[in-house]
C-alpha cells in the first residue's frame, strides 16, 4: 500500500523505500509456538511478516489468501503442524489437500508461486520458522511489490481519484 494515503496531518513523508508486506496464517499449537520459541531463543529474522493466529491449519480458508492479496500483501505464508502432530488429529491432513489443490489453481492463473509459501513448522522448530521468514522476505524483496495485483487494486475506482484529489487538496 503506497504511503500517500497516510493521514493528511502528517507532512507528505518522502516517498519511503518500499518494504515487503507479508501476511502469515499460522496454526496456534505448532507454528505460533514455534515462532514463540524463535523469540525466546532470541533468533533474528526480518520484521515484514504479520502473523494471524488460527486454531488449526485446517481452519485456513482459500478466501483468506485471496483477501490478503486484495489488501495489498506482496506475499502470503501458510503454516501448520507436521502431519501426525495435529492437536486436532486431522486438521493438517485436510489443509494439505486444500493447499495442494488451491496452489495449482493460483499457479494456473499466473500467480507467481514464490509469493505463496506453504510449510509445516512444529513447536520445536523455531529455527525453521526464522529461516522461512528470512527466505520469504529475501525472495519477495527480489521480486518487488506484487505489481500485477496492485494494478487490480489501482483499478479501485475510489482510490485512484482520491490520490489525485488528495494531491490537489495537498
Amino acid at each position, binding site marked *: *500500500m503506497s*504511503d500517500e*494515503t497516510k*493521514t493528511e496531518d502528517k507532512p507528505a513523508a518522502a516517498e519511503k523505500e518500499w*518494504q515487503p*508486506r507479508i*501476511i502469515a496464517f499460522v496454526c496456534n499449537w505448532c507454528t*505460533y*509456538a514455534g*515462532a*514463540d520459541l*524463535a*523469540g*525466546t531463543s*532470541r*533468533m*533474528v*529474522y*526480518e*520484521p*515484514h511478516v*504479520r*502473523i*494471524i*493466529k*488460527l*486454531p*488449526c491449519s*485446517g*481452519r*485456513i*480458508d482459500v478466501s*483468506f489468501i485471496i*483477501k*490478503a492479496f*486484495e*489488501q*495489498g*500483501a506482496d506475499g502470503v505464508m501458510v503454516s501448520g503442524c507436521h502431519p501426525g502432530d495435529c*492437536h*486436532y*488429529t*486431522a*486438521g493438517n491432513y*485436510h*489443509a494439505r489437500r*486444500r493447499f495442494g489443490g488451491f496452489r495449482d489453481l493460483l499457479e494456473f492463473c499466473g500467480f507467481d508461486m514464490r509469493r505463496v509459501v506453504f510449510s509445516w513448522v512444529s513447536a520445536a522448530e523455531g529455527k525453521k520458522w*526464522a529461516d522461512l521468514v528470512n527466505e520469504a522476505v529475501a525472495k519477495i524483496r527480489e521480486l518487488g511489490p506484487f505489481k500485477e495485483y496492485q494494478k487490480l487494486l489501482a483499478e479501485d475506482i475510489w482510490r485512484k481519484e482520491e490520490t489525485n484529489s488528495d494531491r490537489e487538496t495537498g
Partner: protein
Amino acid sequence: MSRIGVFVCHCGENIARMVDVTRVAEETAKLPGVAVSVDYRYMCSDPGQNMIKEAIREHKLDGVVVAACSPQMHEPTFRAAVVEGGLNPYLCEMANIREHCSWVHTDKELATQKAIDLVRIMVEKVGKNQELFPIKVPVTKRALVIGGGIAGIQAALDIASGGHEVVLVEREPSIGGNMARLSETFPTLDCSQCILTPRMVEVDRDPRITLYTYAEVEEVGGFVGNFKVKIRQKAKSVIADLCNGCGDCWNKCPQKKIPSEFDAGLGYRTAIYVPFPQAVPNTPVIDRERCTKFLKDKCGICEKVCTLNAIDYTMEDEIIEVEVGAIVVATGYDLFSVGKDQPNEQWTGYGEYNYDAYPDVIDGIQFERLLSASGPTQGEIRRPSDGKEPKSVVFIACVGSRDPEKGLEYCSKICCMYIAKHAMLYKHKVHDGQPYVFYMDIRAGGKNYEEFVRRAIEEDGVLYIRGRVSKIYKDGEQLVVVGADTLSDSQVQVRADLVVLATAIVPHRDAYELAQKIGFGCGSQGFFSEAHPKLRPVETNTAGIYLAGACQAPKDIPDAVAQAGAAASKVQLLFSSDELEREPIIASVNEATCVHCRNCIRVCPYSAITDKEIKDKKGNLIKMVAEVNEGLCLGCGACVAACPSKSIQLAGFNDEQVFAEITALGSG
C-alpha cells in the same frame, strides 16, 4: 465493540528496547473504536492489571487488547483480570509484540511499525468479538467398563469404591479374561487363580457394580457425560436367580466332546457349561450351536435333572439400554496364530512350523492350561498327541512379534518372562526333563524380572540358545527343531517331545469394529489409539472414553492394573462435578443457509457434527441440516473451511473476526 482499551506493555526492557511503545500507544489511540490507549512497564504485574480493571470501569470499555508477550504466557492472567473488571473474558485479546516482534527484530522503526500493525489486527478482531460463556454439559455419574479381564475388574472396583455406579460387560460366560487361564504368574509365581478370584468375587458382591456376562456392547451414542449404550445380553437359557451352581446339569449333559475355549482346545466341555470352576457368576450357559435340544429338539436332560428348574430354553437375547457418563475400554488381547487364516491381511502365518498342523506344537496359553491344576491334565505336563510326559521341551520366543516380514514389527513385551516361567515350572514338574529356549534378546525390564530369568537359567538349568528357529518337522514320535545358535555360530538341531511357541500379543479380531462402534481411534495394527503416548496414555481423542490393559498395547499384569487405576481416576475426575465445563470455542450452524452437503460432518475429526431434521408443526420434514454437538466439538475449525456457503462458524475465530484482521492490514 466500540469502546476498546489498548494496553501496551514495556515488559521492563524486553519490548521497550526494540519497540517505541509510547508511539504504539499514540498511533492506536487514533484508531476508530479505541477509547483509551496507554502503555505501562509491566502490564502483567498487579498494578498493571489494576490499570486494566479501572480503565474498564472508568471508560465503560467493551473490549481490551493487551500488547505484550505471547498469549501462551499471560492470556489467562489478563482474561482473569478483565473478568474482575466486569467484562467477559473472551472480549480480551493479546497482541504478541515480544516473542514475535521485539525479541526477534533489530530495526527499531520497522519493529515499531510491525507492533502497530499487530495491535491494529487485534483491535479490529476485538471489535468483532462476542461474549462467550463456558459450555455446561450435565454428567451422568455412572461408568461403563467393557471387558472383564484383570484391567476391567480393577477399573470397575476402583470406580465403584469411588462411590459411582459401574456397568461391567463381559463377552464370555464368566469374567476373569486371559489371566484366569494362567497357572502361576511371574515374577512371584503366585497362583493366578488365588490372586484373581477374590477380585472376581468382590466384583460380584459389590452392589454398585452391575455385571453382564455372556453380553456384548451393541451400540454407543451420545457424548461425554451423556453416552447412551445398548447392551445385548445373549440368552443363557439358564435363569441366574434360581440357579445355585450345583453342577447337576453340566455333569449329566451327554455332549461331552466340545473343545473348551477356556482350555484353548486342549480340554473338553459340555453343551451346558461354566468355563472354569471358579467362574463368576457361577451360572452355566447353554451353547446353542452344540446343544442337541436346540439342534434336533431332542435330549433336554439338563432341564429334567435341574431340581430348581432354572433351565429355560425359551429365553431370548435381550437389549438393555443404559446411560453412562464415561466408558473404560479393557477388552484385552488375543494370541497370534501361526495358522494360514489370519484376521489382518497384512499378517502371514508360519509355514516354516507347518502352520498349526502338529498337535505337539502349542502356544503359551495352551501350555498354561497344561500347567494349571484346573487344566485338562490336572497340572501334569502331557503331550496333546499321545499323552506321554515330554522329556525335552523347546520354547521359541518372538513367534510373530518383531517379525516385519510376518507383518508384526512390535515386541509383545511379556513373552520373555512367561517363557522363563514356563521352563521353570516344567522343570519343577518333570525334574529329568530338559527345557530349551530359542530367543533373540531377553527383555526382562520389570521389577525383579531380570533376577527371575537368571534363576530360571542358573537354578533350573534351562538351556537358552540365542538364535531363530528356521524349521520344525516331525520325525517319528518326536519333532526336530532346526535353528541357529548365533553365540557359537553354528546350526543346531534339537529333538523335542513338545514345542511351545511364544506367539505375539494381538488385538481381538473385532477390535476395529468396536472402536468404530464407540467412536475412537484405532492404530494400524488394531490396538486402540491413546490421546498422547507419553502425556495422556489412558485417554482417547474422544472425550469421556478411556483405555486400560492390553487392548491399548501389549503389557503385563502390573501395567494393566496400573492403567486400570489411572483410567478409574480419570473417570472420578470427570464425575467430580455435576456439570462438565468446556471451552466455548466451538462451532455452530446457521440453519437458514445450511444445505446439508455434509462436508462438515465428514471432516470433523471428533464426529461432533450430526444430521438434524427440521420439521414444521405438523411434523413433516422441511429440510435437513447439520448440527454441532457442544460436548464433542473441540474447536479446530476444519468444518468452517470445508463449508462452501460458510453456514457453520467457529466462535472466537469466525469469518467476521478473521476478515477484520486481514482488512486491518489493508490500511498500511
